[in-house]
C-alpha cells in the first residue's frame, strides 16, 4: 500500500491539482476545475501551435471532486487543452478521469494514428488498477475516440463497457443528465465560421513561408535583361504579379475557408478557383494591374492565379471536419494535371513575353 502511494504521488503536484484523494490502491491527484492564468495562457500557446510537445499531462488516473467507487470514469488524451476542457466541464461533479498517453496529441488525431486506441486504454486500465478503484465496469470515452478504439475489444479484454459520450466536452453535463443519451447535435461535428477562422492562420503561414521564393523568382524573371539583372525592371515588371500572388494566397487560404459554405460547388478546388478568379478580377479593376492592353499578361493572370488559389484552398481539406480521403483523392487526380498544365502554359507565355521584350522576335 505504501509503495503504491509513493508511485502515484512521487512528483511535485502540478498547479492544476488541488490535493489528493485516497483510493484502495493509493492516492491520486484531485483536479481543480477552475482555470488558472497559466491554463488560459497555455490554451493560447497550444492553439497557436507553439510549445505543443512540452505541454503534456502525465497519463494516469485523476479525481474530480470526491468520487466514489460508483462514480463515472471519463477517458481522455494527454493533450493539455483537451484535458483542460474536460476538467472545466466536469466542475461540480464527482468523477474519475483516466488520461491516456497520446503523446500530447488531441483525441481526434491520436485516434487516427492509433495512439488513442484499445491497447493504450487496456494498458492504462491495468496500470492504474481501475478495477479496484471503481466497482462498476463502465467507461465514457469522447466520441471521436471511436475512430481508434474498438469498444468490443476493450470489453473483452478488461470487462469495461464503453459508452461514447458527446463529441464536445461542453455537452457532457447535459449528456449525463439525460441518462447518458446523446442528441443528434451532441454526436455530430459542426464546423462554424469561428472555427474555420481560427484555422486560417495555419493555412496562411505555410503559404506565406513559400512566398519569398516565389517573389524572388518573379523579380528575377522580370529583372533579367540582356545586360544583367535590372532592379527597376524587376520592380515594375514584377509588381503586378507579386500583388496577384498575394491576392491568391489570401483568396485560397483565408477567404475560401471563411466563406466555405457560401461559395458554390462542393469541390474545394473549384471553390478556391472561383475565389481566385474574383481576386484577380478585383486587382484588375481596382489597381489596373496588369496594365490594360497587355494581352499576354492578362491571360497569364487569369490562367495562373486562380489555379494557385485553388491549390491553396485544397490544402484546407486537412483542417476540415467533413472531407474524406476518397473525395480529396478525386480532386487531386483531376486537379494536379490542370495545375501543372496551367503553370507550364503561363511560364511559356511569360517567356514569350520576355523574348519579345528583348526584341528577339
Amino acid at each position, binding site marked *: 500500500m505504501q509503495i503504491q502511494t509513493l508511485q502515484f504521488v512521487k512528483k511535485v503536484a502540478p498547479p492544476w491539482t488541488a490535493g489528493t484523494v485516497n483510493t484502495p490502491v493509493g492516492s491520486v491527484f484531485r483536479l481543480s476545475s477552475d482555470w488558472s492564468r497559466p491554463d488560459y495562457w497555455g490554451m493560447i500557446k497550444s492553439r497557436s*501551435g507553439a510549445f*505543443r*510537445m512540452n505541454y503534456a499531462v502525465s497519463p494516469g488516473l485523476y479525481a474530480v471532486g470526491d468520487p466514489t467507487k460508483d462514480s463515472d470514469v471519463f477517458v481522455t488524451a494527454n493533450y493539455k487543452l483537451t484535458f483542460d476542457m474536460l476538467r472545466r466541464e466536469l466542475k461540480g461533479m464527482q468523477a474519475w478521469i483516466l488520461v491516456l498517453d497520446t503523446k500530447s*496529441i*488531441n483525441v*481526434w*488525431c*491520436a485516434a*487516427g*494514428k492509433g495512439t488513442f486506441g484499445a491497447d493504450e486504454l487496456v494498458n492504462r486500465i491495468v496500470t492504474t488498477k481501475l478495477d479496484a478503484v471503481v466497482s462498476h465496469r463502465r467507461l465514457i470515452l469522447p*466520441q*471521436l475516440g*471511436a*475512430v*481508434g*478504439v*474498438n*469498444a*468490443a475489444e476493450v470489453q473483452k479484454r478488461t470487462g469495461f463497457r464503453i*459508452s*461514447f459520450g458527446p*463529441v464536445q466536452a461542453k455537452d457532457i453535463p447535459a449528456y449525463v443528465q439525460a441518462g447518458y443519451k*446523446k442528441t*443528434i447535435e451532441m*454526436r*455530430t*461535428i459542426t*464546423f462554424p465560421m469561428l472555427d474555420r477562422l*481560427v*484555422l486560417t492562420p*495555419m*493555412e496562411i503561414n*505555410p503559404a506565406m*513561408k513559400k512566398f519569398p521564393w516565389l517573389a524572388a523568382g518573379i523579380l528575377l524573371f522580370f529583372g533579367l535583361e540582356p545586360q544583367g539583372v535590372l532592379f527597376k525592371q524587376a520592380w515594375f515588371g514584377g509588381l503586378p504579379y507579386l500583388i496577384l500572388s498575394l491576392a491568391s494566397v489570401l483568396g485560397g487560404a483565408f477567404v475560401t475557408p471563411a466563406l*466555405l*459554405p457560401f461559395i458554390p460547388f*462542393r*469541390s*474545394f478546388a473549384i471553390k478556391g478557383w472561383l475565389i481566385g478568379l474574383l481576386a484577380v478580377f478585383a486587382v484588375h479593376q481596382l489597381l489596373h494591374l496588369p496594365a490594360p492592353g497587355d494581352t499576354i499578361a492578362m491571360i497569364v493572370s487569369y490562367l495562373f492565379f486562380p489555379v494557385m488559389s485553388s491549390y491553396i484552398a*485544397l*490544402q484546407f*481539406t*486537412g*483542417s*476540415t*471536419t*467533413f*472531407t*474524406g*480521403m*476518397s*473525395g*480529396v*483523392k*478525386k*480532386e*487531386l487526380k483531376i486537379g494536379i494535371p490542370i495545375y501543372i498544365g496551367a503553370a507550364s502554359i503561363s511560364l511559356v507565355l511569360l517567356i514569350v513575353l520576355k523574348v519579345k521584350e528583348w526584341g528577339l522576335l
Partner: protein
Amino acid sequence: MKYLANVTTLSYAADKCAGCGRCVEVCPQGVFEMQDKRAAIIDRDLCMECGACARNCEFGAISVNAGVGCAAAIINSMITGGEPSCDCSGSGSSCCG
C-alpha cells in the same frame, strides 16, 4: 456541409446488422439512424471515411476504406508511396488542429 457526392467507400450490409446502435453512437457525421431496430444510412454523401463505424460494428455489417481527407497528406503519400497520414506534430501541414 457536404463534400463530393458518390465518392465514399462506405458499404453497409443490412442483413448482418444486429441492431446494436453502435454505428449511430460513433458516427460524427450522422450518416446512420436506427429504423425498425436496424441501422439505416440516411445520407452516404455525409460520410468522411473516418472509420469509426466499421471499427465498432461487432457484426461486420460495415466496411469503409478509412483515411485522412487531407490534400497535403495524400500528395505526400503519392510521392513517397506510403499511406496518407497526418503529421500532427505540425510544422507545415495543418492536418488535425
